[in-house]
């Protein structure tokens, strides 16, 4: 049975459109004359394919900005936020980022979601010497990060694909199949899954890349199910995952699914019901649930948006806090390069652990080293600005995500 909590979804119907509006007037945006602010750009995919995630990423950014400003700013500088919609389109993103750079004179751009947007805007932000923070998964982001100004808060799809294969192996599956949404992130994930699996002498029973925006994926799914897989690595967004899982459930064929955490979560359960989502394996950056930074963030996020934050929202929150701590560490007079230099320092191992901006700031003020562990991951940046998080492996049981184990993220050999 698919039970939908009416009051909740009715709320969602309005919230997604309007409640977000309440924050339109950007909190804490009043600044005293002559106060030196840090001008922060948010470039989110509000519309387009990123539509289900972008608006909430912006909310998370606003929330973090409010937190920093409520604490009196970083190194005495309050954050002033300028938000733009990139429409999940590279060419719209180019103009949006130019506007942020030229008109708003921002010093950093956070919240970039799509790899295509990240790759298209990188030449501009690099030319302008801006710090950028994104959730892009394309490995090309690392090679194009020529000035070391870009920070990838999401694991690259190579790491994700590897983790999926590792989970399949640990769970003892023998015949995995791969199904993926046709975009660069998911095709990458699918390819890395395949190569990681085959590197250990296994074979992938079926490999299907499907076109998005269809009303039925039955034929594609049938193609996968015909190979009698015991598990399907499904790299999908929520709309297509909803249809595919619905059709899989209806088919009555038994198999498991391994899916990314930003798709296999409570929202998916809400859309499909408990029965069809029972036993799905959901993989996401470990942090969620137990971590204090996440708990606090999730609670605040929930009071504003009436829903659980997804991993992208958590990452966006971390971007702002990380930036604020780096600014605090570099001092009020620091330029962008100096602030950028501190990002690795305030997140790297060896410092005193901090879970919020105020905690981290107080540690810094005592003259100690700080290690910010964020709401999305422990945030240890590699040499190209990439994060290699540990992954939490969750099973969906009776409509809830239950953590089963934690596996270390690693790059494919």
């Amino acid at each position, binding site marked *: 049975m698919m039970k939908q909590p009416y009051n909740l*979804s009715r709320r969602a119907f309005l919230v997604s459109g309007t409640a977000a509006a309440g924050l339109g007037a950007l909190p804490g945006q009043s600044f005293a004359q002559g106060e030196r602010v840090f001008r922060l750009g948010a470039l989110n995919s*509000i519309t387009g394919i990123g539509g289900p995630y972008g608006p909430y990423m912006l909310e998370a950014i606003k929330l973090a900005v409010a937190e920093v400003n409520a604490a009196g700013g970083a190194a005495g500088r309050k954050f002033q936020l300028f938000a733009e919609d990139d429409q999940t389109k590279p060419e719209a993103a180019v103009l949006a980022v130019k506007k942020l750079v030229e008109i708003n004179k921002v010093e950093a751009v956070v919240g970039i979601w799509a790899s295509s947007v990240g790759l298209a805007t990188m030449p501009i932000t690099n030319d302008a010497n801006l710090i950028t923070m994104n959730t892009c998964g394309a490995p090309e982001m690392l090679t194009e990060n020529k000035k070391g100004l870009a920070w990838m808060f999401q694991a690259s799809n190579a790491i994700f694909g590897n983790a999926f294969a590792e989970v399949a192996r640990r769970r003892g599956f023998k015949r995995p199949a791969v199904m993926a949404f046709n975009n660069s992130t998911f095709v990458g994930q699918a390819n890395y899954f395949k190569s990681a699996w085959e590197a250990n002498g296994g074979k992938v029973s079926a490999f299907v890349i499907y076109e998005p925006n269809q*009303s039925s994926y039955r034929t594609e799914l049938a193609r996968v199910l015909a190979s009698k897989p015991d598990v399907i690595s499904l790299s999908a967004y929520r709309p297509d995952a909803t249809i595919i899982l619905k059709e899989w459930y209806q088919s009555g064929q038994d198999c498991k699914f391994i899916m990314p955490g930003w798709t296999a979560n409570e929202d998916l359960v809400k859309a499909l019901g408990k029965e069809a989502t029972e036993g799905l394996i959901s993989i996401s950056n470990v942090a969620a649930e137990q971590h204090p930074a996440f708990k606090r963030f999730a609670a605040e996020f929930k009071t504003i948006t009436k829903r659980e934050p997804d991993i992208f929202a958590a990452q966006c929150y971390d971007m702002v806090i990380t930036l604020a701590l780096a600014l605090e560490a570099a001092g009020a007079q620091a330029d962008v390069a100096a602030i950028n230099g501190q990002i690795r320092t305030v997140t790297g191992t060896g410092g005193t652990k901090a879970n919020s901006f105020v905690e981290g700031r107080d540690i810094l003020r005592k003259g100690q080293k700080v290690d910010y562990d964020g709401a999305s991951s422990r945030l240890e940046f590699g040499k190209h600005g990439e994060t290699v998080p540990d992954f939490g492996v969750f099973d969906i049981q009776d409509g809830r995500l239950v953590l089963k184990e934690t596996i270390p993220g690693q790059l494919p050999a």
Partner: protein
Amino acid sequence: MDWISIANAVINGVVIGMLLALPALAITLVFGIARFPNAATGDYMTLGAYTTIASQMFLGGSIVVAVLGAMTMTAAISLLMYFWVFRALAERSHVSRLIASIGVAFAVRSTITFFAGQDQYVVDLPLVRAWNFGGIRILPTDLYIVGAALIALLLVFCVMYLTPTGRRMRAIADSPELAAASGIRARRVMIFLWAVAGAFCGLGGALLGIKAVVLPELGWELLMPMFAGVILGGIGSPVGAVLGIVTFSIAQEVASLFVGPAYKVVLAFLILLCVLLLRPQGMFGRPIAAR
């Protein structure tokens, strides 16, 4: 490919085809009588799907009421747009009506997203398993969908071929000048046409919402395959539209077993080209000369 996969693909094609037959019929009727390809068709479907969701949320769960509500809503909007836009453009070029219909499509969709946002919605219905006949799978929900579509189609065909309004409609489709000369008042026919076109898009959208998920681009994404199906059947031919879109959907599903999903669209385009080059009047249409 074994024959069971092919059979399942065919069944899936039939279900999608029957579902799309409703808006396809709307396209072909509008094309035949109001004489332009209506680009707002897809977004009328989207409107139908969202009305279903809204009605379930705010009025309670009955799916039948929700679907009927969706049909009423889209019929009303379709009539409104006729009275405001398309009636005034009746004497102008096809292209001006086509462009205006793109404007209508944008306006309808953005109004929906303004209130509902960009995230997905699902129609609240229990999930049921398919009946399995030795690997051939048939879904009870699909049977309802095909049944609803069939009843709606039968009703319209009865009206078109058995009632005076239907006769007038066909007369205008055949030759507007002749129809006008023999004293047929176009106004009543037009009202009937736009109401039916709207209601059918609404029904198609609602059924699609039940089958899939409800997103702002739901109908817009289907315009291309629907036009291709209509052309395949012969533009302006109601029976052709239904058979055309069903054939087309089956072809797409079966083809995706062999050529890979991405080439569905390319295949659609190739079919369309071949039909237009070899038999421009389509499977059932009257020959239409180049203007």
